[in-house]
């Protein structure tokens, strides 16, 4: 199997062991880093996310990663954002009303409806829009209390339902943002990561 180099961002609030093991299973060679130069240089980057929106942004800011991450997303360079990582790409979250996100797109994450179990913990059916490149229909494992309910302009979305439809994942070019955990979504998740790793092999020029 070809090995693909991936830089995994240490956000300080995420548990990296599971993500690193999942990426290795998909064929990646994982380096953990938390400096701006690594985020800037990485051919492929994974932004994990566990914990609260504000805590994660505070950690990114203290490591001076906000600008390089936002630039990387704007430039469309190969990046996977996981769980809270997807929400951080937006502008804000109900979870932390005073915190500003990476603002790659205008979106505010909101809390699931009270009529369903929160946090959402478990496997939910993912339905990608026809325009999606990476995402396929299947079951993914979610662990979240907040979510997006609309697809930002210029992105393609996959959807799931928990008290109403929500954004299960977003993609745009070489960027894949998953509300679910691909590293915990069985063979379906491994295959998704493998497709992304293989297709991001070529150097992507900034737009």
């Amino acid at each position, binding site marked *: 199997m070809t090995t693909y180099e991936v830089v995994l961002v240490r956000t300080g*609030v995420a*548990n990296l*062991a*599971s993500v690193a*093991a*999942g990426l290795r*299973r998909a064929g990646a060679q994982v380096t953990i880093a938390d400096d701006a130069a690594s985020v800037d240089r990485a051919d492929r980057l994974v932004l994990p996310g*566990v*914990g*609260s929106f504000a805590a994660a942004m505070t950690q990114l800011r203290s490591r001076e990663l906000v600008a390089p991450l936002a630039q990387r997303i704007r430039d469309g360079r190969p990046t996977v954002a996981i769980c809270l990582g997807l929400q951080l790409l937006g502008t804000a979250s109900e979870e932390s009303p005073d915190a500003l996100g990476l603002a790659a797109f205008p979106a505010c994450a909101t809390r699931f409806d*009270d009529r*369903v*179990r*929160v*946090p*959402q*913990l*478990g*496997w*939910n*059916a993912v339905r990608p829009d026809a325009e999606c490149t990476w995402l396929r229909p299947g*079951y993914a*494992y*979610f*662990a*979240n*209390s907040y979510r997006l309910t609309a697809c930002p302009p210029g992105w393609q979305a996959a959807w799931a*339902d*928990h008290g109403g439809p929500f954004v299960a994942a977003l993609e745009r070019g070489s960027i894949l943002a998953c509300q679910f*955990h691909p*590293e*915990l*979504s*069985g*063979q379906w*998740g*491994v295959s998704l990561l493998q497709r992304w790793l293989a297709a991001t092999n070529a150097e992507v020029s900034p737009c």
Partner: protein
Amino acid sequence: MLTRRIIPCLDCRDGRVVKGVRFANLRDMGAPVECAAAYQDQGADEIVVLDIAATPVGREHQAETVRAVREVLSIPLTVGGGIRTVENARALLDAGADKVAVNTAAVRDPALIDALAGEFGCQCTVLAVDAVRNGDGGWRVAVRSGAEHTPVDAVAWCREAVQRGAGEILLTSWDRDGTRDGYDLELLAAVASAVTVPVIASGGAASPAHLIEALKAGADAVLAASIFHESQYTVQEVKLYLAGNGIEVRR
């Protein structure tokens, strides 16, 4: 739609999977890595690893077990048994656990739940409760693997734990554990309606019909050990049966 989860549980002691009745008369069921991998292949939605010895020596085995299981597992892994501090939890998460379950230590010091949720998030913090019937229609909390019955009301404790930040309840009927009489459905219904977080039913399952009863009583997930360990049913067979009875499962 969110599917119902089937969760095989590996009760571990000194790095081996064991099974007994009410935590006694333990029998060796195999190595954790092989058991976990086999259940994953059968379609398990998650694996729970509980260290039932919870001794200092056991804790070393526990981290080793988690590391080894993580390498083969691409589904969620919850770990519990003997977690007393944020640092104990961190060591297990660093070894590859996705969620940690606390029981006795949280009853002794409920602020442990706040600390874990604050540090790792509520989606990572599971409250494990061993509930025992108290004769007047309620349940009390048992700790130290059932050895000590506290005066704490089990349903009120679940409610408090959720307010403190527990994101999931692993609810074991101590009266039913290992008995094969089916889950305590009244207990399940009482807790499921008292909290807003997911509830995992545990203790007493011997057949797929028992799992259906628990899911209909309000459980979001069912945990079982002996029905899978003794190869009476594979996870896949159980899921086919559940799907045939109108319950949404991942297939």
